[in-house]
């Protein structure tokens, strides 16, 4: 035997498990206002410290403090608050619809609403997001995507714009800068870089915004995207939403222990920030900073958004099996809606009464949209898109073998009916 101790495998564990409270000190939070704000043309290597600290604007009292506080724009912030409320209410209603079997499956973004909604407000028309399944806020922050249409997709009904081909929430809205969601993880990250490269090749002024979760950063496509984004100085924002959990897998299993996901970017020569994702103002400011860099040929920016997945991964998941049930209540970065509301009330731009009436108004809008969507059917009542559409769009023109198979299906259906 050697004189050394025997080797042992290290398998990371979260500090909290059911019945055992989480010690959130692993997050290494910085006080609001502490992180410096470098000029947009900073050399990527000079952002190393910002990849390990935390950009925050809103302090415990809801005041906007420090160099990242965006210029005062109360009407924009009220718009953002309403977008977050809309997203949360939409999610809550769709969860119920799933339990009623009107929808086969749903994924909410409870607790993460600030990230997508504030980011959407920092982008310009024509920019393209390559989202995961938890960025519905990008669409709900916009006025030009009717909620009823989103719901028709969720219900896979006769008006489903995706003709029943995709799982619920896998939207596609080119006109709203929302790339088709794959369902395979991480694939969109490098595609976003390619889209940004294309924009640069054409001398356009549009930028791409790539989205990924902490868990999927372990995929090769994440690292490939960082390499390509750096090599070609692609006009792209590389968003890593660290919500601590990938189904039951804690972020340390994806490689977040004793380091940060933002640090990956600096290692690849990419300017990188680690930002409080539950702080609407910080998200807005960091997104604008990164967008300005991208649009000025200064290259990519990686942003790790620290947040917490307050709900289950999906309607097929039960997080009480693997983490403390009250974790979100104890998450030190709080609730993004409550924090922005506190700020807006503090600056005299909002009130509890306005908040209550906005909530009721949006609830009514969501209910009306759902009624409209359900008038076109739900998965439950069998009003699904026509079977023939299954064979369309496999190729631009339907090849002979698919025409034959469609004819066969139709014969078989008629046979079964007769």
């Amino acid at each position, binding site marked *: 035997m050697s004189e050394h101790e025997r080797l042992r495998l290290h398998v990371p564990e979260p500090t909290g498990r059911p019945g055992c409270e989480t010690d959130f000190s692993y997050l290494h939070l910085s006080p609001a206002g502490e992180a410096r704000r470098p000029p947009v043309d900073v050399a990527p290597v000079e952002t190393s410290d910002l990849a390990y600290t935390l950009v925050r604007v809103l302090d415990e009292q809801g005041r906007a403090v420090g160099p990242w506080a965006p210029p005062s724009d109360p009407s924009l912030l009220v718009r953002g608050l309403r977008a977050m409320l809309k997203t949360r209410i939409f999610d809550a209603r769709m969860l119920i619809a799933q339990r009623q079997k009107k929808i086969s499956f749903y994924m909410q973004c409870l607790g993460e609403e600030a990230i997508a909604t504030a980011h959407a407000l920092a982008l310009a028309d024509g920019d393209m997001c390559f989202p995961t399944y938890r960025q519905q806020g990008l669409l709900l922050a916009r006025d030009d995507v009717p909620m009823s249409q989103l719901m028709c997709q969720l219900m896979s009904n006769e008006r489903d714009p995706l003709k029943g081909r995709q799982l619920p929430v896998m939207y596609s809205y080119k006109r709203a800068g929302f790339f088709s969601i794959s369902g*395979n993880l991480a*694939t969109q990250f490098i595609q976003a870089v*390619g889209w940004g490269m294309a924009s640069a090749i054409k001398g356009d002024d549009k930028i791409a915004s790539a989205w990924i979760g902490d868990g999927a950063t372990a995929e090769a496509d994440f690292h490939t995207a960082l390499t390509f984004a750096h090599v070609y100085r692609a006009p792209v924002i590389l968003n890593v939403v660290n919500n601590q959990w990938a189904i039951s897998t804690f972020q340390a299993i994806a490689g977040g222990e004793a380091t940060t996901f933002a640090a990956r970017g600096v290692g690849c020569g990419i300017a990188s920030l680690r930002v409080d994702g539950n702080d609407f103002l910080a998200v807005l400011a960091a997104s604008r900073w990164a967008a300005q860099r991208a649009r000025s040929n200064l290259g990519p920016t990686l942003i790790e958004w620290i947040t917490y997945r307050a709900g289950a991964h999906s309607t097929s998941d039960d997080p009480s099996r693997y983490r403390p049930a009250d974790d979100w209540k104890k998450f030190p970065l709080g609730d993004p809606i409550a924090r922005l509301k506190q700020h807006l009330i503090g600056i005299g731009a909002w009130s509890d009464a306005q908040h209550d009436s906005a909530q009721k108004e949006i609830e009514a809008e969501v209910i009306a949209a759902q009624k409209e969507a359900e008038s076109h059917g739900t998965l439950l009542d069998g009003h699904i898109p026509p079977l023939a559409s299954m064979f369309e769009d496999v190729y631009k023109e339907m090849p002979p073998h698919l025409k034959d198979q469609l004819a066969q299906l139709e014969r078989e259906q008629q046979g079964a009916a007769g």
Partner: protein
Amino acid sequence: MSATNERHRQKAGGPMTMIQALRSAMDVMLARDDNVVVFGQDVGYFGGVFRCTEGLQAKFGSSRVFDAPISEGGIVGAAVGMGAYGLRPVVEIQFADYFYPASDQIVSEAARLRYRSVGDFTAPITIRMPCGGGIYGGQTHSQSPEALFTHVCGIRTVMPSNPYDAKGLLIAAIECDDPVIFLEPKRLYNGPFDGHHDRPLVPWSQHPASDVPEGHYSIPLESAAVYRPGSDLTVLAYGSMVFVCEAAAKETGVDAEIIDLRSLWPLDLPTIVASVKKTGRCVVVHEATRSTGFGAELVALVQEHCFYHLEAPIERVTGWDTPYPHAQEWAYFPGPARVAAAYRRAMEG
């Protein structure tokens, strides 16, 4: 449609090798459509390890023709994003043997983007990759993975066998709005190799298919070519096997009708069915491994569509179900002797 007839409709541009023809196709398309970009490992300044892109960066600039990191997944993934933007990327995977890291981007992304988004986004990309053996490339530079692509719905798989077809099909692939896997039998890059590895190389300039017009022309995808008309039996072949099958016909005296499939999937089934109904006999030949290979699909289709016309069991000649060997290459590569034996069995059956 015969390759010879197509050729005569065009103004002659002089003899080209398959490498020159492929380069000419990219040259023509880069000039015609400023949405076309070409990238991949070593394709920029150097012009590719097989020289297919030589001179294109100097002519079109480094934002149209450029080198990529050694990351097949990244190359194809970036191409999908560029396609979604509106470009028509032509990417090179240095050897078909290296495409595996890009599988997810090909199978789950490029192939299904139009379908899953109902045409909201598309990936009109061309993925070129040299394939096949006969160059002492061993198990990592010799594979013929076409069956892995033909099994995927939403992509087209193409494999030319000569310079004229290579150019016309590559232009058609670049212009196609579907993603196309473009397999280039590298043993044919410099000549119509017939499997007689112990004989001197015949250059393309001695073959009529090297007569390639300089300008734009395309060969429709989903169209096979009757490479050699015949009446005794039908041979279904593509890529490196076409000239092997021709040599076997010469050596046996069997009047084989050799169909060069060119587009493997979607496939020109009517040309196949018409020929087999005429000859009543069929031999399927490919270099790739045998079991569950593309030949199995061809045999099944012929059986489904021509059963009552068949006068003998359908024969298959393929590579063995082993990794591609190095030193034993010529025992692996299906040569004229094995094809000739299959012709004889089919004629006796």
